[in-house]
């Protein structure tokens, strides 16, 4: 194991070393969770909402957990291979109440994500069930895998 010396021992070097260490730790976490497929998933973009994107044949499925968001306050846009999700979570209106705990957050959000393929915007379907949004995006005709028949004489 190599020992790195800090000749003048300025604090800036120490903090860079700590940053390096932190980055290595994060990479390690990501590696471990990639292998085990368990635990808290690494947040890639850091923009609300967290998404799960799946590919199933000629469809791309995007899922997001959006508890307490009225489907009417949700906006889904598709441009080519970009999906834009925007909306707002409104605070609950309660009169004359005192809070013991307030952990649930509210506010607005806007997130763009690049899909692996172009999709046909007219055939996109979205469903909100129990606070989980599922968007099914069929791939565009031109990018769908085509099976080529071989003619034999």
């Amino acid at each position: 194991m190599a020992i790195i010396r800090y000749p003048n021992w300025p604090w800036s070097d120490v903090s860079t070393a700590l940053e390096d260490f932190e980055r290595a730790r994060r990479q390690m976490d990501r590696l471990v969770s990639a292998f085990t497929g368990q635990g808290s998933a690494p947040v890639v973009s850091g923009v609300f909402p967290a998404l799960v994107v799946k590919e199933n044949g000629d469809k791309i499925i995007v899922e997001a957990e959006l508890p307490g968001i009225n489907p009417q306050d949700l906006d889904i846009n598709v441009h080519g291979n970009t999906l834009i999700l925007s909306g707002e979570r409104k605070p609950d209106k309660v009169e004359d109440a005192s809070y013991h705990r307030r952990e649930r957050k509210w506010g607005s959000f806007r997130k763009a994500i690049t899909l692996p393929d172009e999709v046909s915007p007219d055939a996109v379907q979205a469903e909100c069930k129990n606070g989980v949004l599922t968007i099914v995006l069929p791939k565009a005709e031109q990018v769908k895998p085509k099976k080529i028949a071989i003619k034999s004489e």
Partner: protein
Amino acid sequence: MIEKDLQIPEKKEVQSGAESTRNAPVFIPAVDILETEHELSLLADMPGVPIENVDIDLEGDQLTIRGTVPRQDGPGRVLLKEYAVGDYYRQFTLSNDIDREKIQATIKDGVLKLVLPKSEAVKPRRIEVKAS
């Protein structure tokens, strides 16, 4: 109203001695607890939990909320995974006397709402100060 950007809520896993038999992580749901004159309301974010999978238990002054997410590993290859799906579990100790018969639970858009009406005996009373 001030425009505020929503942040990704950090899902905290339950740290307890007893392990779940299901191979799924168990998370602590974010809750709001608010008190009005007549009742105590509890709101918990539990996305993906259908009403029939919510289990509410009041034993003594210990309130337990449990929500299980139906396993739905649909076909397909995962390209991006920014969050993990798991069950929800949280326990509270209630300080007020609750009228157990009148507890109501509803779930809407993945938010569990529990209304716990206070029993008559503990409702605050206004005390008149008489001047002699």
